[in-house]
């Protein structure tokens, strides 16, 4: 443990894991939504980010992020060796599916570090894949919920009464649609990739 804590200066993810451990050590493991909330706060990500911005955010956390063509069945990949960490996201993934994959890969990295610290969140019967998918959904919902108050405030400031109502309506409709999108991302990806596969077969 001491060995690990000594090396945290070059390892922001490990530092984050230690902070989580410090805050929730008494009632371990923390709920997935709590972890997602703290991760989004730490990562500083917004609901809509460009690939370039994602790269910058990852770099700030000591992770190299690349978007490259990947074999057809891979959406994302993460690996770490010593202090080197890298996440690869399939370049054909459109936004915000790429953000979902990014959060998924981060969750796997976090679990590896928690295991190394001797405090895994997922038990022997749990599935890291399933948990990482849930974490990605929760992170995206968290980023969206952070944006909504700002949009509501903008709607509040609209002078014209009907335009103000319309703005509120739009924020609520788009906010709800985005939250559903977050929840249904894995299913939507399946449908999209199946449609793409069938198009490929038929042409």
């Amino acid at each position: 443990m001491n060995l690990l804590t000594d090396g945290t200066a070059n390892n922001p993810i490990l530092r984050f894991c230690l902070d989580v451990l410090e805050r929730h050590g008494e009632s371990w493991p923390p709920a997935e939504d709590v972890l997602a909330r703290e991760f989004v706060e730490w990562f500083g990500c917004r609901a809509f980010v460009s690939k370039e911005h994602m790269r910058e955010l990852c770099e700030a956390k000591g992770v190299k992020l690349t978007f490259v063509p990947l074999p057809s069945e891979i959406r994302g990949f993460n690996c770490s060796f010593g202090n080197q960490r890298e996440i690869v996201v399939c370049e054909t993934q459109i936004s915000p599916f790429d953000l979902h994959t990014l959060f998924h890969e981060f969750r796997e990295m976090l679990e590896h570090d928690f295991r190394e610290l001797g405090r895994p969140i997922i038990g022997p019967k749990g599935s890291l894949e399933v948990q990482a998918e849930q974490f990605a959904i929760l992170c995206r919902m968290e980023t969206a919920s952070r944006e909504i108050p700002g949009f509501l405030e903008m709607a509040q400031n609209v002078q014209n009464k009907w335009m103000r109502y319309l703005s509120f309506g739009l924020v609520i409709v788009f906010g709800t649609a985005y939250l559903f999108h977050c929840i249904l991302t894995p299913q939507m990806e399946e449908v999209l990739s199946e449609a793409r596969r069938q198009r490929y077969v038929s042409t």
Partner: protein
Amino acid sequence: MAVNMEIRRFLQLLISCYNGPAMESFGSYLHRLRKSRGLTLKQVEAQAKVSNAYISQIERGLRNPPHPDILKRLAKAYDVEHRELLIAAGYLEEDSVVAERRALEKAFEHVQSDPTFKHGTRLKGTHVSLDTKRFIVEMYEKLTNRPLLKRA
């Protein structure tokens, strides 16, 4: 009996040293194949109708590679091509495609067993194709600076 087996093992070790580290015996190849498929000896016995004691002896190098007919049944159980087992057993000459595939599978297993390299993949489904294995091995080579695959 036990002394005999030890002598045999020692002789096999000597032979494998003489052949060089790149040569893998049929027994260890079969053992690796079974482990990579997550099969027990009993499961192979049930699927291929070949005695588990016999398979165990082959894996430990105490028996010669079995008859091609038995290899055909084992190929089905291990989900590999019959030709691949025939090549591994020395009945057929190895072609470059099979050699490359075997090298890749071996490299992938090395990556999986290295505790210093932590990795995870977001997959569509559960099948891990050869392309995916190659990608993971290449990522390993890049990050660790340890070449595993020969390149032309």
